């Protein structure tokens, strides 16, 4: 037990989580504040027979990770804002051709080079809309080092289970903070692996739903000799260019996420029956929120919190319900207001919605949330 207690940085927890999840491949390009993930995996992967490669840029890194996943390895890449922008085209291909992989973005202040060493939650909307065209997105945001370890494993599990890239959105605070983690026993970790085809190559269609909406996926070299393309394709994997195929594919890609909201959408709440003010947060900002709520409660204010661990898909139905019972929802974010837009869209004016927004590289302090609580109460 003792040697499972560790003081780890968030970035290091990604490394540990990836190893625990069975990752065997990392391709990446250094960037602050995500380089520690590359450095950690460069050291750790070969121990488990895994591979690390530093590519010439982030476009190549994203491509390389998709390739490795097609060869059958659980794969991960890590970057920060500028690199995340560069990965977008190939990330879109990954979503289109349904490649399990994990893409970590340790957010720093943007746009552009911005403030490279300061924390931000400015890439939340980019995680959903960064690549062209509609596309399915899963994005998770941990608020502590422990959660980083756990959600890294979850990210791999979702990637494999739903056959899609999963984005892990850290912020610089979580990425660089050192904190206690108790690593679980290997036996206690739930691991998902991609579904392999049950039929032989003759009867195999790489993009055919079998049970559920997620097609099984063989490794390259296993004799299935199938085709994959970023063009719209039918179940055979080949492009026919018909409008019907396009619609069917897009509908399935979306449905495989949306119809599994109960599994994918992770959040926690601490809301008592009579709480009227709800602070909804995610990532490092959550820490201030919890601190503020406990202070508020001590002061007799009826306030509670919601922590989003899954940011995308956004839990619209849940928030709709919250909107009905809450008087006000306060959303602290290290950006100019991104998730607050989703909240506004979904509560139909039922509750007041207030944002607390910092985008200057400093944190939102518990006090600032407390002040807002006091204001709206």
């Amino acid at each position, binding site marked *: 037990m003792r040697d499972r207690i560790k003081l780890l940085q968030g970035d290091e927890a990604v490394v540990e989580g990836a190893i625990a999840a069975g990752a*065997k*491949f990392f*391709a990446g390009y250094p960037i602050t504040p995500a380089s520690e993930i590359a450095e950690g995996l460069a050291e750790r992967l*070969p*121990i488990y*027979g895994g*591979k690390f*490669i530093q*590519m*010439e*840029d982030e*476009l*190549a*890194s994203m*491509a*390389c*990770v*998709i*390739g*490795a*996943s*097609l*060869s*059958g*390895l659980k*794969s991960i890449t890590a970057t920060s804002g500028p690199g995340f922008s560069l990965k977008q*085209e*190939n990330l879109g*291909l990954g979503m289109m051709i349904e490649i399990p992989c994990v893409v970590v973005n340790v957010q720093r202040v943007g746009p552009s080079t911005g403030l490279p060493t300061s924390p931000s939650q400015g890439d939340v909307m980019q995680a959903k809309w960064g690549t062209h065209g509609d596309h399915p997105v899963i994005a998770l945001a941990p608020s502590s080092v422990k959660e980083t370890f756990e959600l890294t494993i979850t990210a791999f599990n979702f990637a494999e289970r739903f056959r899609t890239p999963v984005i892990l959105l850290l912020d610089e605070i979580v990425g660089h903070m050192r904190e206690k983690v108790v690593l679980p026993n290997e036996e206690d970790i739930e691991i998902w692996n991609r579904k392999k085809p049950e039929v032989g190559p003759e009867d195999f269609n790489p993009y055919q739903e079998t049970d559920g909406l997620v097609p099984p996926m063989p*490794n*390259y*070299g*296993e*004799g*299935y*000799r*199938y*085709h*994959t*393309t*970023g*063009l719209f394709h039918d179940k055979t994997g*080949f*492009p026919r260019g018909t409008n019907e195929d396009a619609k069917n594919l897009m509908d399935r890609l979306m449905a495989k996420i949306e119809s599994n909201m109960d599994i994918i959408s992770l959040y926690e709440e601490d809301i008592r029956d009579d709480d009227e003010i709800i602070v909804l947060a995610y990532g490092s900002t959550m820490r201030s929120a919890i601190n503020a709520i406990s202070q508020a409660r001590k002061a007799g204010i009826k306030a509670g919190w919601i922590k989003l661990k899954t940011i995308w898909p956004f839990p619209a139905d849940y928030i709709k319900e919250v909107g009905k019972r809450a008087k006000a929802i306060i959303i602290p974010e290290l950006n100019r207001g991104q998730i607050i837009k989703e909240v506004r869209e979904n509560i139909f004016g039922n509750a007041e919605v207030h944002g607390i927004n910092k985008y200057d590289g400093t944190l939102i302090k518990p006090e600032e949330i407390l002040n807002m609580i006091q204001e709206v109460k």
Partner: protein
Amino acid sequence: MGYKIDEYLRQDKLPHIWCPGCGHGTIMGNLIRGIDKANLDPDKTVVVSGIGCSGRASGYMNFDTLHTTHGRAIAFATGIKLANPKLNVIVITGDGDGAAIGGNHLIHGARRNIDLTVVLMNNHIYGMTSGQFSPMTPTGDNATTTPYGNIDQNFDLAGLTKASGASFIARGTAYNTRQLIEIFAEGLLHTGFSFIEAISQCPVNYGRRNGLSSAVDMLKCQRDSSVNIRKWDSLSEEEKKGKFPTGVLYKEDKREYTEMYQEIIDSVQEEAK
């Protein structure tokens, strides 16, 4: 010649979408013959292509095949190969795909000397998007984006990949089909980064605009301007003008990337014991 090409082609996808007389079909056919000649296990062979007319080749070849994004095929292939070094990984790219947008991956793939076979179908033009110039369009030629003639220099891809660190470099033409098969087979069997420039013809978007209206004319032009490397050195500078050498231009025994990485794994795991 007895090449088993039928089973390496996805017959139900033919006829292919390439225009009449397009050199890409001939080159793909002879790549397949090269694969047969090299006796690769088709279940362990992966073809990765980019975007372009050339990029469509992957769809017709009966292996594990991946049609990627424009210019990035080598980066995808690097992941496939490093993740499973037992696979034979072939990249098919175009002169725009491989030398314009994909230039960085080409030189870095070569630098790593990772065991890929890269076939660049060079038709001196962007075929798929209907005739814009590429980094391989000769200076002075016509393309839709050079209404006043092309002022860009073109690359010498053999020189570029050599300078980058590739360990096998060859050039062939759609015209010289037998040489092409030899080159492909040799490149496929070479361990390390093999770069093969295959000169193709695009009658529709290049020939038409540059005084060569038929595929046949363009093939004759290939014939007249190519010289086997065995003869090349004996030519005078004067004789070399307007000509280019074909064949295996460079070959070297050099440490290969995935092998070196495996050594790391082996030694780290040994130590961990």
